[in-house]
């Protein structure tokens, strides 16, 4: 069906008119019904839909009319013995316009949206990541702008002409060697820097004054456990999980007795933090972008991430001129319906504030758990025997 047929089609016009009328009717029906029963399920606002569909068809119609006009103009030119519209040249010109608009758009995007990105890293290793990021951005953006400019300039400059022939150049070994070796060198630089930065960040050496914090993910919350006065977190076992002992802390070990259960993650500034990352059900991911921290929480595979926060929440609020600013811990691995809202506030405070906060936290071993443990102790044999090893591979 050509455009003419489409535009002149009586069936199409009738359908279109019926559609619009239907929209009006539905609108009236809905208005009347709205007063009668407001609690009913919301009805479709066909008028709204019809409005957008009508706009779409009008745009299509507009494009078709412009197309027709261009075609007539083209035919007129040809009848006058001319060559007609030079679409090839028009495309070449659009290429150069796209290049200029694109360059400006990229610049605008970098300045406007670039300024909305994360502030400076609030952790010691984050600074290294940011340096690496700057180096990579500079190198890649040079390549980005040069290659895109060449691409679209060539398109404009070498657009088709009947008067000349393309240059026959099947290969040039020297040039090919240059543009194989040059990226290889640049990438080697990035690889070397990246490799050493990565090794430093992933340094897993345990220090005595590391603050150990357990972060356990489950659908759909994070549980935090801090060590008590002994500075040691008690061991855990998923087979010990009960209603009151929802993390499965093993209270046969003394180190568990003084562990603390907290709601908000407080971190002392400039202290080495070791997050012990665990999951109970599916994979979650601890993501704290301001600290440049991310590591998956995998059931059955405890992981850890070490970092040192360097900017307190109060300092960051001043820097950003945002009195409500909070560091946040997200879940960054798809984990179910409420994955999008699995957040935890993280506060970086001074050592004194941290100690003061810590002294106010309640122990994990609360009254309900004591009661339950007493009950559980009588049945310890039963609970310990639940090693149901069905796996074929262990």
């Amino acid at each position, binding site marked *: 069906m050509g455009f003419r047929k489409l535009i002149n089609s009586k069936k199409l016009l009738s359908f279109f008119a019926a559609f619009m009328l239907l929209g009006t009717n539905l609108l009236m029906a809905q208005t009347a019904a709205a007063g009668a029963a407001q609690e009913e399920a919301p009805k479709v606002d066909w008028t709204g839909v019809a409005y957008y569909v009508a706009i779409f068809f009008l745009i299509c119609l507009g494009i078709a009319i412009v197309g027709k006009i261009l075609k007539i103009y083209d035919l007129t030119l040809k009848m006058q013995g001319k060559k007609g519209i030079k679409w090839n040249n028009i495309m070449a010109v659009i290429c150069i316009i796209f290049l200029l608009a694109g360059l400006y758009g990229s610049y605008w995007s970098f300045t406007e949206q670039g300024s909305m*990105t994360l502030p400076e890293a609030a952790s010691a290793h984050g600074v290294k990541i940011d340096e690496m990021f700057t180096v990579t951005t500079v190198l890649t953006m040079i*390549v980005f702008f040069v290659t895109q400019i060449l691409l679209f300039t*060539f398109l404009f400059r070498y657009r*088709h002409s009947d008067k000349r022939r393309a240059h026959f150049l099947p290969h040039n070994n020297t*040039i090919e060697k240059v543009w194989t070796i040059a990226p290889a060198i640049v990438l080697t630089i990035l690889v070397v820097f990246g490799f050493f930065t990565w090794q430093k960040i992933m340094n897993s050496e345990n220090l005595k004054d590391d603050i150990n914090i357990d972060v356990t993910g489950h659908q759909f919350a994070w549980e935090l456990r801090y060590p008590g006065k002994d500075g040691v977190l008690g061991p855990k076992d998923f087979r010990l999980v009960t209603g009151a002992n929802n993390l499965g802390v093993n209270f046969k070990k003394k180190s568990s007795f003084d562990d603390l259960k907290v709601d908000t993650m407080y971190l002392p500034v400039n202290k080495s933090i070791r997050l012990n990352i665990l999951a109970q059900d599916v994979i979650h991911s601890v993501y704290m972008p301001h600290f440049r921290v*991310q590591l998956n929480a995998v059931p059955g*595979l405890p992981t850890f991430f070490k970092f040192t926060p360097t900017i307190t929440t109060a300092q960051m609020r001043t820097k950003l001129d945002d009195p409500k600013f909070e560091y946040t811990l997200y879940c960054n691995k798809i984990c179910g319906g409420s*994955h999008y809202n699995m957040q935890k506030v993280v506060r970086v405070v001074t050592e004194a504030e941290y100690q003061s906060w810590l002294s106010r936290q309640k122990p994990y071993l609360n009254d309900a758990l004591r009661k339950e443990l007493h009950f559980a102790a009588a049945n310890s044999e039963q609970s310990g025997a639940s090693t149901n090893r069905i*796996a074929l591979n262990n």
Partner: protein
Amino acid sequence: MSTLAVHDHAGTHHDEHGHEHHHDQSFLSKYVFSMDHKMIAKQFLITGITMAVIAMILSILFRIQLAYPDKTFPLLTTLLGRFAPNGRISPDFYLALVTIHGTIMVFFVLTAGLSGTFANLLIPLQVGARDMASPFMNMLSYWFFFLASVIMLSSFFVQKGPASGGWTIYPPLSALPKAMPGSGEGMTLWLISMVLFVASSLMGGINYVSTVLNMRTKGMDLWKMPLTIWALFLTAILGILAFPVLVAGVVLLIFDRSVGTSFYLSDIVLNGVQQPFEGGSPILFQHLFWFLGHPEVYIVIMPAMGISSEIMSVNSRKPIFGYHAMVYSLIGITVLSFIVWGHHMFVTGMNPFLGGVFMITTLIIAVPSAVKTFNWLATLWRGNIRFTPAMLFAIGMVSFFISGGLTGIFLGNAALDINLHDTYFVVAHFHLVMGSAAIFGMLAGVYHWFPKMFGRMMDEKLGYLHFWLTFICAYLVFFPMHFMGLDGVPRRYYAFTEFASMQKWLTINTFVTWAAIIAALTQFGFLYNFFVSIFKGRKATQNPWESNTLEWTTPVEHLHGNWPGEIPTVYRWPYDYSKPGAEEDYIPQTVPYSQTMSSNVPHDFEDNPVGLEELNKFTSTLKANEQVK
């Protein structure tokens, strides 16, 4: 209805002297259960387009949620029923939408739709074979794909909806049927669909490799194959080696789901209940998945590279620059793509040393990619460029490949990946480099080979409109996403406005959604052009683009067996465009050197026994004639 067709017997019909006989074909055997590679190509294409439209609509649905996270749309309830109660898509269905959108686009459109279409169409036509090595298996390949598509879509009609654990279906979400609504029957159907899909890919891949290796016409040595064939051939090898690993992973996953094994599960408490799994590791599945998953992104992009190379050469009327380098870079990418999978797992808790190793291999793969980009630019340099819609889409592919490829350098760097992993930066990166670039490669191929498939031409002006609107909108959609990622906005968040720090992105998200809607509506213009042109398009000539490759030597009307007589002999490489001394600005591969004496150069005969033999014969005839005179 019956038509006269040429049918060949297996084992005898693929040499150029193979006998042919004619018999009637029914509607079913010609259009439905066809064994003709050209018809199978069309079947793959139209099914791929259908799946692409579905995936596109799914993406618009979840983009509406992202643009208007706090508003209600009663129409959504009418359309989606229980999946969108109270005029809003439910969080679980949102995840299902992103999961199925990703699955369909990666596997059903960009793998089967792209490779299935162009490998089927071009391999026999461009290497000079009458059909695939095994036409029956080729037909089965399509029907397995079709069945996989139907099963994947049918998951929308099971009670709890389709799989919703992301297109990577990481366990335990995929292994515990009670983990979320999308872990139930929908996930089972996803797994069944994928096993059938892999079977289809393997049958297709084996056919492509066998055909390229065994059935090339006389003179068509490997170094005379068009880059499309090289790309499709290497893609098929990638698929054959990588897909079975996914099947192995999926089978173990099915065991974990149904039989009670613990390959991927350990230490799990679900809804307060301890699960009897010990000793497994979800990370094992990720290793198996990404062993396919990363080569998969090259399975997606390499055919687009081959198609674009071919089209850029034809339309800039220049030889592709550095043909050998282009082939070696494809081979390099093929080999390297198998040892980079770990970069998807930098933050899984994998041994950090291993992370360092994968970072090195990942960044090395940028070298062959850079070589390809520079060679494309050199191909355009001093060309005589014709802007057909196909050419524009090929150029768009290069532009996206540059933009998306460069951001891959950030993600391949383990240190940077700590902060960028699973954010919108990743979404922007892969949608440019393998989403948009591959789709543009595919569309370039559709516009370029439409006359070969349907014997008619598509409307050029609509093609121009299609290109510019899609190209601009794709950049408008994906460019800003980089910055969202740099602000640490995680992907797959149903309502990011729940976080105070992310609310500033609402305007951008609304803008992106409208750009996506315009891009989607533009595709309906393409569909109109495509389907109307099949029946009403201007009739095509035999070689409308003045191209050198063999497919344009076949008749416009399709013939089962491709060439009515003998298969033509190939004398030269496919990129003799604008050769100095030649009368025309193109010399088809079937033109002997003896007919182009004024344009021959010594390089033409290096490692070219057929050309050399033919030239010697010609020279001795010339001498003999002179002696007679």
